């Protein structure tokens, strides 16, 4: 156990207290952490794209690639491990863009928009987030304490 790297389009769940879930280089992609502090189960996803409709067959093989298939899957796996929805602490990082991208092919912004819709439908709040901007991020999540930090060229901050 120890450092568990969550690659692009991956979902990882852990209930091992010495685990640290980490995902690197979130550009327009979004990393979401979910934590049940009572039973101390945590999960992380690093998804790339908002909607699986562009390729349902890929979503079937790799649900973590898309927000609409991956985020519900993250919660399903958490609940299957005994987590309770009302206790989940959800934190979010990523959704960045290139310079002056604005609305134009702005996958980062759409990634965050879809996430908020999914969470809103499921009555889950975002406890903290660090999204947008022209900056890539590394998201790190300690299972023992539930501490989530975001590192970028600007330095490291706790969410």
């Amino acid at each position: 156990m120890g450092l568990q790297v969550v690659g692009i389009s991956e979902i990882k769940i852990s209930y091992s207290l010495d685990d640290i879930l980490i995902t690197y280089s979130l550009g327009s992609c979004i990393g979401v952490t979910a934590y049940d502090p009572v039973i101390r189960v945590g999960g992380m996803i690093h998804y790339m794209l908002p909607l699986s409709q562009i390729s349902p067959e890929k979503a079937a093989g790799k649900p973590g690639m898309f927000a609409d298939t991956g985020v519900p899957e993250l919660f399903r796996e958490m609940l299957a491990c005994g987590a309770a929805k009302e206790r989940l602490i959800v934190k979010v990082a990523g959704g960045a863009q290139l310079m002056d991208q604005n609305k134009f092919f702005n996958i980062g912004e759409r990634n965050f928009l879809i996430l908020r819709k999914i969470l809103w439908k499921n009555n889950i709040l975002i406890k903290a987030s660090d999204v947008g901007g022209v900056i890539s991020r590394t998201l790190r999540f300690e299972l023992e304490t539930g501490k989530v930090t975001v590192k970028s060229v600007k330095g490291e901050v706790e969410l």
Partner: protein
Amino acid sequence: MNKKEQIVSKISSFPTLPVMTHRLIKALNDPENAATEIVRIIKFDPALTANVLKAANSSYLGFRRPANSLSEATFRLGTKWIFQIAVSSLIYSNLNRPAAGYDMSGEELWRHSLATALMAESLSSLLKIRDSGLIYTAALLHDMGKIVIGEFIADSFKDIQRIINEKNISFELAEEEVLGVSHTEIGALLAESWHFPSVIADCIRWHHNPDLYPQNEPALDIVHIADATCLMEGIGLGRDDLQYRLSEKAVTRLNLSNNVLEAAISQTLLNLEDVENLFREALPAANVREVKK
């Protein structure tokens, strides 16, 4: 010597690409004879033949019966696939080198290069742009200038970053302002020094600024969008991070929709995992270090 001259003088110390790369590109340009010609060229080089066969027989592709010859592998996997594996493995050792000042390890630069090449391939196939292999090769080589210019970036990084912040210009323009030359120009000069087809050099030279190119060149627009998308998705980022621009005009010229772009992105991620697996299995262990970030 000023900085630009110092950097340009380093070009000659960059390892030359194997001469077979040229011959493969030339062969692919002649679609009627490409299949037989490419097999003939690869056969000349026992190490390359071994790599292509290992890749073709890698557990990933999961053939029950191994491909025993290049012709059989080409028949099963297609000429283009064989070309891409051959060119990638020829170029691998030239590109798996750190770009020091950009804080990019060899693996990261290689991963970004490979991802951009695969993204360019997905885009050209979805947009039905006839690609002779030049687009794949140009995309693979688009950032090699970073390896040459890297050592000069370290000292100038603060100045470059200050100019980006002050003027809101993208990284390669600030790079040019501080050093007198950018990684795009250095990469293009390298390609020209190897007498590559001029479209490859032009794709490298203008890959961040396709609108400045006087003609309409779909290959350039594809390489530009493939690179920008891989940066945006965070595949192989350095210290220059996301400080680049995506040309709206290039998107319009290609008539590229959101759906096609996203389909290409998802396909690229899967292809990247496959090809990275192939390389891990096919190339000697000493040559390939675990891809990490």
